[in-house]
């Protein structure tokens, strides 16, 4: 589904991502762990097309997308959420989702309205439909990020720390939504610090540290790995 071949990214002299190789199969839900500054978001930005890689190739569904613009990748089926949400603050919550359905999801205006209504219900935002997105509380803003990403009808969904800062109950609700999305056939890559949340859903876990993956595999094995403990858990 997605293949990173020797992908690198440097900011000035600092190599944040150094020749990373990664393969993602359809139907997976992969969790990405890593200490702060390990380059997780940089990796997402390169997959989504926000940042051009300094080197390497990114292939999505057998198409080289390395030089493709973010909006074209989105229309190909790559949806993403931002760690720091990017709501369209002066548009209503409904319009936020509608515009994603129109542009990323390629729906007609009427279709997009129906889809936006359904997605708002699914993400628990229906009661905020007419609230300007800038006035939403944190949880709702995170739900809106997810709602917008779903509206583009992704086949690959990139989630960037979507569970951070949520209470236990809120986190459960979010996990339920993500599990539903996964069951509907969307492949997911999920950056998260909340390990217990990741463990409940992911099929594979990958740990990013020092510019590359230091461990990739089944969640139990990866979490038991000595290098992972040193790099991430600090023991």
């Amino acid at each position, binding site marked *: 589904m997605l293949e990173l071949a020797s992908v690198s990214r440097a900011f000035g002299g600092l190599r944040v991502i150094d020749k990373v190789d990664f393969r993602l199969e359809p139907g997976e839900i992969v969790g990405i762990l890593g200490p702060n500054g390990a380059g997780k978001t940089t990796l997402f930005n390169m997959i989504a097309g926000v940042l051009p890689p300094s080197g390497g190739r990114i292939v999505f569904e057998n198409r080289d997308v390395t030089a493709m613009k973010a909006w074209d990748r989105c229309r190909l089926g790559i949806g993403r959420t931002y760690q720091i949400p990017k709501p369209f603050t002066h548009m209503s919550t409904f319009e936020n989702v509608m*515009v994603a359905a129109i542009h990323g999801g390629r729906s007609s205006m009427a279709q997009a309205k129906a889809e*936006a209504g359904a997605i708002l219900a699914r993400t628990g935002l229906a009661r905020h439909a*007419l609230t300007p997105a800038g006035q939403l509380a944190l949880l709702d803003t995170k739900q809106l990020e997810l709602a917008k990403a779903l509206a583009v009808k992704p086949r690959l969904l990139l989630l960037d720390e979507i569970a951070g800062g949520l209470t236990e109950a809120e986190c459960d609700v979010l996990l339920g939504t993500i599990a539903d999305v996964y069951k509907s056939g969307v492949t997911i890559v999920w950056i998260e610090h909340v390990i217990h949340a990741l463990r409940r859903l992911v099929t594979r876990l990958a740990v990013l540290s020092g510019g590359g993956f230091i461990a990739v595999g089944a969640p139990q094995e990866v979490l038991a790995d000595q290098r992972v403990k040193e790099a991430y858990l600090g023991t």
Partner: protein
Amino acid sequence: MPTAPNLLLSGLRLLFAAVVIAMAAGPYFLDPTEVVIVTEFLSMLVLAIMWNLLAGYADIVTVGQHAFVGVGAYAFFGFSALAGLDPYSSIPLAGLVALIIAVPAMILVFRLRTAYLAIGTWVVAEVLMLVAGKLQAWGGGSGTSLPISIVLSLGRARNDRLAVIYWLAFALAAAAMFVTYFLLRSRIGVGLTAMRDNEEGAAAIGVNITRARILCFLGTAPFLGMAGAIITMQKLRIAPPASFSITDFTVFIIFNVVIGGIGSFEGPIIGTIVYFLLREYLSELGTWNLILLGTFSIVVILIERRGLWGLFRRLLADDIVPVAHKPTQPAVVSRRLSATES
């Protein structure tokens, strides 16, 4: 049950509609001086609407918008005075020339972003003005007047001419508003509105930022060009520094839009009204008028980034001209009141 904000909103919508209808009949009840001022108001409104679309939505903060006004003015003179076409068909042709000139200008300035783009647009405008000054048939550096035959073809009596130019400006301003309204309601428009609020976020949900920018830049040029033609009809002459006036066609316009509320449909309209009110009632203060305008715009920005309209909008349940899309399901609509009150 109508609440106070909703009542206010209905009142404003009625007022807006009434003013538009009254303005359509302007020359029948305004005296000639007023007709001239309102014509000028309508031309400036067109420029404000266009700058708002570029800077407020597409993030093309141009300070070279006067380029296309000047190109329109010179093209209008060329078609009507030099080529001998009738002045009415010279107006859309002037718009077309502005569009054609906009293509290479765009290719040049779109290589730049933000402040560099602003400077780039300014340089393009200055270059075009200097080129205009080299055109001998257009009177060179000192410019020239519209031939009397063209002036008379608009109407034999002065008041008839003023009325004709008034209606041309009214038609252009109405067209600018219609086009903006339908653009903002369209698929591209909702994408533009998303860009206004968060460009990276818009790209991430599939909005083609480049295409939206191109569309705005090329779409505004003909309107600017036609406004330039109408301004020339009113001023009766062309000259490089006057037809390409950065102060009148760009700087004041930026003030208007910023004061009125950038990135909204109502903003440029409110800003242009405020500008004309200040100008008409404070003009005896001379330079102080401009100092006040500058101070006023700084104060407005410090209080509310989205201008007077942003400030006023807090009291209302909806926009005066509702460009936003509403959910279609009745269940969601019925919750509207509680959502806006919370």
